[in-house]
């Protein structure tokens, strides 16, 4: 068994000290076989923007859930803005824009287009519902 002192020597003398040290230390851990905890991958929700609507127009999210929106326009530049949560993005044709939703308290948050897009621009809105 390696001692802590020998680990220190290995770390100091090895040309690739950090990977070696990590490997040696891992072998000393009683729970070495257990996978390290990793951050949960966010759920991805695809949102399509077109004049003058979003699909889906309602996005449901559980409180505390990590969600990333993938936003794409099928016609022209639109905006995707949730003023209450202080997030927004431009949404362009041919490009997928990723927007991480901030964690929010349960409630209904309006999202809307904030890039003027024509005669019913004012109607282009939806709801983020945090359950």
């Amino acid at each position, binding site marked *: 068994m390696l001692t802590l002192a020998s680990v220190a020597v290995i770390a100091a003398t090895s040309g690739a000290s950090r990977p070696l040290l990590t490997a040696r230390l891992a072998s000393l851990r009683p729970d070495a076989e257990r996978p390290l905890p990793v951050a949960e991958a966010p759920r991805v929700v695809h949102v399509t923007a077109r004049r003058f609507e979003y699909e889906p127009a309602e996005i449901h999210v559980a409180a505390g859930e990590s969600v990333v929106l993938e936003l794409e326009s099928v016609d022209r530049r639109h905006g995707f803005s949730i003023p209450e949560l202080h997030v927004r993005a*431009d949404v362009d044709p041919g490009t997928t824009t990723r927007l991480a939703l901030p964690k929010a308290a349960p409630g209904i948050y309006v999202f809307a287009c*904030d890039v003027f897009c024509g005669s019913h621009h004012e109607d282009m809105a939806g709801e983020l519902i945090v359950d």
Partner: protein
Amino acid sequence: MELDRRRFLQHSALATVGAGVVFSLGLRGGALAAAHARDDGFVFAQLSDTHWGFADPKVNPEAEHTLARAIDAVNALSPRPDFVVFTGDLTHTTDDDDERRRRMARFAEIARGLRIDKVRMLPGEHDASLDGGAAFREHFGDPHYAFDHRGVHFVALDNVSDPTGQVGAAQLAWLADDLASRDAEQPIVVLAHRPLFDLAPDWDWATRDGAQVTTQLERFRNVTVFYGHIHQEHHRTIGRIAHHAATSLIFPLPAPHSVPKKAPVPWDPARPWAGLGFRTVAEAGSGERVVLAEHSLARP
């Protein structure tokens, strides 16, 4: 035109009796105002959101006659305004560039019926956001500008030619340069289409970089902003800056966040033209006070 003290007070009285609401901005003081104190003043009129080309009989079956009705009312004012300003959305938006130009030409033709020498135009997003303001410039010139009138400095800002609803860095720099040499006591009037503060961003009632405008105005003692966009009278004072929204000349919109979904208030046959109108602003030449009068197009 010269508006002496007696006639200025007459405007206030007329506003109280004939037009309904009077909104006094209170006293304006300061050394410069005192130095320039004299018995004169002036009136200007603010018309907004005419949306020429809009067609929905349930919302306004008199859409083709509403602008002319307002012009008749302005022409009947006494004392006559020194100038008229239209604070945007002169025309209703269209995807057809040729049709946009036809609407602007027709709007301009009707507006020439105003028996007022100076008529100043600002764009709204319906006029300018789909073509970057190109058609507006062809018909009405620069969408942002400044001018002085009887001691008051007017700044007209364009927060719509950029479809994201911003004034933008270039115009902010122009504004800083315009204001740089001005005395903090000089009354400043800002004209714009969108509100310069976050009235209701989820209803698109905001200017994304509006705070960068108001920050530049904070050092002035008397700043008043007149804007349109929200199709209703609205008053809010933030810090030293008073913001006043005007009614529309096509359809009213509901009060901010008063309904789940923003939509035009339908036409009421029992009260035609209710909620539609314009405003006059009486500025005392001494800079002592400003009186707003709201003029409804509806019959009393």
